[in-house]
């Protein structure tokens, strides 16, 4: 872990000259013929490799969608697994082009890391998981508990705030990676495992007996997760930002990976604009006119991606909740494409 950080830091210090002068990420990506995408080291539903090394998940699909818009080929992505504490250094040093790794949008990260969040792919919140045998029904009954947490996350700070605010004592045991944290929780080193609630459901699947563990009802924080790009390259920022908006817009308009070709032929002015037969928004972004068609064909619209990875169509079976479209009671809202 240390060596990775060190290597990245050195690369960072040495590579800064090249980086600042050359802020044309899109051009670099096109020249390389490959998008470098920073993901987690394995979080089911968001980014995890299967036994053949194929990456799947919501965060993975965001990168595939960007690759789809640029290359019309979802395989042209190199996934770089990163620990929570190495992720920002990897982005700053130019090792990756976009960080899509269940990362919480906060003001300090937006302003002091030399990077920008492009949007919210998943509205999450921090929760707690305990063994059912402890007979605990609320996070407020956790006084004097031992809590396992992954180091270098907003989770660690929210935890400190929550226990302090509620005047409870606790012991924190912080591990370098998600897997180490889960293993220690399973070995009984701590009573409670805490991370974003989606992560709790995902990690519960990894336990030997998922049925013996429960997620407590309290949500103690706002955790809007989203992709990040380097500060100072507005063209690239726009492309990554609008890739997500395109997925959301497609869901709003009922455009799916199955019907996208038929929808593109319809004489509906809005559909014509979005799907590229009218206007040149794609070219403004630095890709082709039919960029939305490419994205939807590659990964599907936002709803399809959600269902396949974390929603009803996945083992996680998480409700849409806050992640539903704005006109269906959720928060997902895209500015108009016009």
């Amino acid at each position, binding site marked *: 872990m240390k060596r990775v950080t*060190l290597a990245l*830091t050195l690369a960072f210090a040495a590579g800064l000259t090249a980086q600042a002068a050359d802020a044309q990420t899109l051009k670099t990506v096109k020249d390389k013929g490959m998008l470098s995408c920073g993901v987690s080291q394995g979080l089911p539903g968001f980014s995890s490799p299967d036994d053949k090394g194929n990456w799947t998940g919501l965060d993975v699909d965001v990168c595939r969608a960007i690759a789809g818009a640029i290359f019309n080929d979802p395989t042209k992505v190199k996934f770089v697994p990163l620990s929570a*504490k190495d992720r920002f250094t990897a982005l700053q040093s130019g090792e990756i082009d976009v960080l899509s790794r269940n990362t919480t949008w906060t003001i*300090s990260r937006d302003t002091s890391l*030399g990077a920008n969040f492009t949007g919210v792919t998943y509205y999450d919140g921090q929760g707690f998981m305990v063994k059912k045998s402890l007979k605990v029904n609320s996070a407020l009954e956790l006084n004097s508990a031992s809590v396992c947490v992954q180091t270098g996350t907003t989770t660690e*700070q929210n935890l400190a705030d929550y226990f302090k605010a509620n005047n409870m004592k606790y012991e924190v045991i*912080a591990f370098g990676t998600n897997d180490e944290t889960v293993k*220690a929780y399973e070995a009984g080193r701590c009573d409670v495992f805490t991370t974003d609630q989606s992560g709790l459901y995902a990690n519960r699947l990894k336990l030997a007996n998922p049925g013996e563990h429960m997620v407590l009802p309290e949500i103690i924080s706002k955790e809007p997760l989203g992709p990040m790009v380097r*500060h100072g390259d507005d063209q690239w920022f726009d492309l990554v930002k609008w890739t997500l908006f395109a997925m959301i817009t497609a869901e709003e308009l009922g455009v799916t990976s199955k019907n996208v070709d038929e929808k593109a032929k319809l004489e509906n002015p809005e559909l014509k604009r979005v799907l590229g037969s009218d206007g040149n928004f794609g070219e403004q972004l630095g890709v082709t006119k039919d960029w939305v068609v490419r994205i939807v064909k590659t990964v599907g619209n936002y709803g399809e991606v959600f269902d396949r990875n974390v929603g009803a169509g996945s083992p996680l079976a998480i409700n849409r909740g806050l992640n539903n479209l704005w006109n269906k009671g959720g928060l997902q809202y895209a500015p108009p494409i016009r």
Partner: protein
Amino acid sequence: MSTEARKPPAQIALKIRRVLGGKTGWNGIAVQFAFAAILGWIAYEIVSNARANLENQHIAAGFGFLRNNAGFDVNQTLISYTGSDTFLRVFVVGLLNTLIVSVVGIVFATAIGFIVALCRLSPNWLLSRIGELYVEIIRNLPLLFQILFWYLAVLAALPNPRQSISLLGISFVSNRGLVVPRPIGESGFEAFLAVFVFGIVASLALRFYARRALFERGQMIRIWPYVLGLLFGLPLLTMLVFGPPFSFELPQLKGFNFAGGSRIIPEFVALALALSTYTAAFIAEIVRAGILSVHSGQMEAGASLGLSRGTTLRLIVVPQAMRVIVPPLTNQYLNLTKNSSLAVAIGYPDLVSVFAGTSLSQTGQAIEIIAMTMGVYLLISLITSAVMSIYGWRISRSLGA
């Protein structure tokens, strides 16, 4: 034509020329200066470039973050620390945690290493095979696996706090660690401490006196009854006069965990255990090599003087072996200290975990934090080297080498 007496050449200029330029004289010095200037220029370029680019990219820079609130907690702190303390305090907390596990590791590694080495050298077949087995198994397995093994083995073997193993009803062992009663100073504490320190100083003085008497006048003085009296009798007497120096706060099970008492966390135990047993295997080989480097005639000479095997080893062989042992032993101490950074794998809050890990990703200031961490490891290593060099120098001197 009158000739003046030639002046002797200026010694200082000659010396400088020899030190800096070697055989090439003043030309060599010019090259040295040019080289130093180029190095300095490169360093300046790197620093100023990094600074300018960090500013361009709006990445926070500088050491101002050390005064900000850390906002996260740490589960083993030798000084008081809460989430509302600064990153600077986190740095100190992590540093102390690294130091304590290194010191404990070094002490145990040295003790186990010497014992295993003596086992391997023992004429007893079983003992020497056990020593050999220990060395060959331990030093051939990666340290990270050993740390994880001890951690998971320790955790798996221990019950949860509610079923903890009670030691005499005052200490408890569970998978939350070992909880022991915490001593709290009472009225008699100062007197007790003063007498205890006096006892130690007086005992050392007595030993010094007895050794001088032995070496200079050949006079044997039996000091152990006095030492016993000074170290135990006197403090006991003070306790009777001034009352007990401590009372103990007993740990009690409350909710999920024990409240009160002092606690040793399982991460510390696992890490110290893994580091000391691993390094001990290397130290054992170094000690064995050192002892074997002493001519076997020394052992025979000791035997012919009628000394026992143990006494010969202690008084004749080991002091000579130390000259060979100390330099590679220093290396092992340095390795142990640096290896303690593997702690992050099992959640022990050492410097790398809390400062180069958590603090780094909370602030994103990789260059400053990694530089500070590297600097600290360098400093610890240099201090360890210096102490060991002084020790080695003293041994050589006392042997007249």
